[in-house]
């Protein structure tokens, strides 16, 4: 095993790590860089609580080697709030009570954000549901989450709305 | 015919009720009463549980009633 130099951007901040190549992206973020908002909940890429955005795409941080994102832009839940202002998805989650224990919330919000970036106007709530199918939530039954994403899609949180 | 639990003295409305109480309590003194009568608490309990009807309760109830009449 030879350690690898990894340089990437996390929430617009340049980071450099010299790490064992088997380190998973979620481990690099949590254990090496302290972004513990991203969680882990399984070993089978099933639960989605480790979801982060890599170059704007939602991926599961437990299924990507950290060295594979060399040079890329990572966004974690900590990077969504800008200038003390919540991202519309975060605001909508608050307003709709779209979280309970909160353990899935970071990953869920990242999936929701990535989904809305790609699909600003989902055709129906089923499309929203498919957008978050990779994220398990044991508390809410998803419906409040769907309502929150729907509210953002419908423009409730648009600047000046 | 009301009668008393031979172990703790609790008043019960009839022999079957009294037997149910004894099985249901099932603590050491109540279990010991069964053994003292030469009965197996657990065998009777499970025959009551797994066989239709109320056979074990009736059997034990009769025994208690007889003892108290005598």
């Amino acid at each position, binding site marked *: 095993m*030879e350690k690898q130099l990894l340089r990437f951007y996390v929430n617009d901040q340049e980071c450099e790590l010299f790490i064992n190549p088997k380190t998973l992206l979620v481990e690099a973020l949590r254990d090496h860089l302290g972004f513990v908002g991203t969680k882990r909940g399984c070993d089978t890429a099933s639960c989605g609580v480790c979801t982060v955005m890599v170059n704007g795409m939602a*991926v599961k941080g437990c299924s990507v080697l950290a060295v594979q994102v060399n040079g890329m832009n990572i966004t974690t839940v900590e990077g969504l709030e800008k200038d003390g202002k919540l991202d519309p998805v975060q605001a909508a989650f608050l307003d709709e009570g779209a979280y309970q224990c909160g353990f899935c919330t970071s990953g869920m919000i990242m999936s929701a954000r990535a989904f809305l970036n790609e699909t600003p106007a989902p055709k129906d709530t089923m499309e929203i549901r498919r957008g978050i199918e990779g994220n398990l939530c044991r508390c809410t039954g998803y419906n409040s989450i769907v309502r929150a994403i729907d509210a953002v899609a419908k423009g409730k949180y648009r600047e000046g709305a | 015919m009301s009668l008393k639990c031979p172990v703790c003295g609790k008043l019960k409305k009839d022999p079957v009720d009294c037997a149910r109480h004894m099985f249901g309590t099932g603590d050491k003194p109540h279990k010991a009463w069964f053994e003292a009568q030469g009965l197996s608490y657990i065998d009777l309990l499970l025959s009551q549980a797994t066989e239709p009807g109320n056979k074990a309760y009736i059997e034990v109830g009769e025994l208690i009633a007889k003892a108290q009449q005598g």
Partner: protein
Amino acid sequence: MIHDFTYLRPGNVKEALAMLAQHRDDAKIICGGQSLLIIMRQGLVVTEYLVDIKGLDELNCLIYDSRAGLKIGATTTHRTIEKSLLVKEKYPVLVAMEEKLASIQVRNWGTIGGNLAHADAAGDPAPVLIALNATVTIASSAGGRSVPLEEFYPGLFETVLSPDELVTEVLVPPPPAHTATAYQKFNLLESDQGIVAVAVSLSVSDAGICQDARIVLGNAAPIPIRAKNTEKLLIGNKLNEEIFTKAGETAGEEADPVADIHASEDYRRHLIAVLTRRMTKEAWEQACQV
């Protein structure tokens, strides 16, 4: 717990092939790693070298040519296929299949080459691509070859790849006229792996006769299998409800499923019969329209 390995990142295909040639059995290839990392974590795969081809952009492509058909580079992600207007127009079944493959996160990072090389009998793309008569292009430092996907899997979790070989692309021939392909998996949850899956591709002659049929059963045997008896039943006939039912029954008989906690062998046969009937009908009705 993933065992330690030495990480190799080739800059191009040639370098990748050289690394494989050098390390042979001591090396494994990672692309999206959506399946590989899970089994590495379980300790089922231990490797000295891990060759990462995820970044090989020369294999990240979707090209359609009306004569050659569709070329999908091995590092093309599922999501790219799913979102491709080209694919949607020419092979709508591929898009439909991709939309229900695992989750968006997995489709964003996972690649078609990685999926096919993982050789999971419950994988979605293989049955559909076999029904579409796809071939895989394989490269090694010694040269290259092309293998029909149907012959790519000798056994459970096995491929015909030798240690120095790499899947570089999947070639899907242009769809013949009056042909339609339908795919469905049976699962308890929307995007779950299929308990069984059936892909049916039918071609109809101008006279309204079934000219060609390719029926592929997924998770119905250790590898995706063609239901050849069922195909024979269809070819040369004008299809109707009776034949659809018979096709289902035949497919159920020629499947070779095993029981697991999700379904007994009998139930799997039953599901294959139902899905084959339904997909044959669907493909037939579509093929008659195009």
